[in-house]
């Protein structure tokens, strides 16, 4: 048995999506910092503009791992514009590529690797371009597991690289 079909192999290297964020707001940054620091208060760098001006960053910045694409994007293009699969559907990648679903029931985040560039600031508009990098599979405690690596590059409105990442999705 294998989850990896010829159609899936043929899709390697395909651009999965291009997304453009709404301008990052101070409120988005503050709420993110509150959530990841809960129940302690977030660092002043993420919410106090007066304090942030005195730091090497020169003003409020977003936490490095902040996601500006949550809660809608200003622009969003997928490989197949005729379908908009639920990102929580374990088969969403293949559905978005317009290829047969491997019939997966669950998905987990298997790992992340990121190289950071410039920080994200209030007002920034971030663009993400993601690509399907690889498929592999192996037997795990819960049966055959499909490992999918997605490459993603984020740039800001000045085309400065914000981050380059690889995310491994584990599905079974």
């Amino acid at each position: 048995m294998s989850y990896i079909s010829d159609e899936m192999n043929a899709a390697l290297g395909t651009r999965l999506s291009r997304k453009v964020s709404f301008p990052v707001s101070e409120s988005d940054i503050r709420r993110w910092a509150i959530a990841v620091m809960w129940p302690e208060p977030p660092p002043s760098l993420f919410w106090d503009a007066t304090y942030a001006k005195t730091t090497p960053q020169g003003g409020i910045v977003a936490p490095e791992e902040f996601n500006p694409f949550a809660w809608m994007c200003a622009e969003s293009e997928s490989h197949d514009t005729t379908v908009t699969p639920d990102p929580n559907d374990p088969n969403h990648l293949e559905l978005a590529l317009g290829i047969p679903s491997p019939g997966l029931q669950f998905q987990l985040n298997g790992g992340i690797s990121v190289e950071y560039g410039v920080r994200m600031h209030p007002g920034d508009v971030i663009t993400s371009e993601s690509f399907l990098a690889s498929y592999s599979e192996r037997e795990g405690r819960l049966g055959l597991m499909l490992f999918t690596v997605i490459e993603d590059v984020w740039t800001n409105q000045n085309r400065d690289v914000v981050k380059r990442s690889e995310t491994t999705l584990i599905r079974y």
Partner: protein
Amino acid sequence: MTDPQSLNVGDQLPTFVRATELAHWNRYAAVNDEFVPIHMDDAAGQAAGYPSAFGMGHLQWSYFHNLLRSWMGETGRIVSVSCQFRGPNIKGQTVTAQGVITGTRQEGNELLVEADLWTDEQSHSQLAIGKAVVAFPL
């Protein structure tokens, strides 16, 4: 604030500790628009093969960043971070993010510090492991 001149291989980073449960995960779901049943509903977590609902991998990722930020202060710069998830953060666990310096090197006018990172729970089972590089100005 961390003095980069005082850093040595083998030094441990100050820990970042959280007793995790739905109050943490729901807040993270709210900011990341990540309302997935396995992170909110015990029955969904059990259907996926786990004892309960469990926390988001991306929240462990944020805990790595919190650990680094609180250690390096505002003069430091996170160059890179990687993370592999080893176990679920189930309800009631106390998660501790930890790190140890594994190398230092000078590049230009910066000191680059390499560290191994991990999170574990109260019985010391690892939940995530990773590596980071942080730059300090010299």
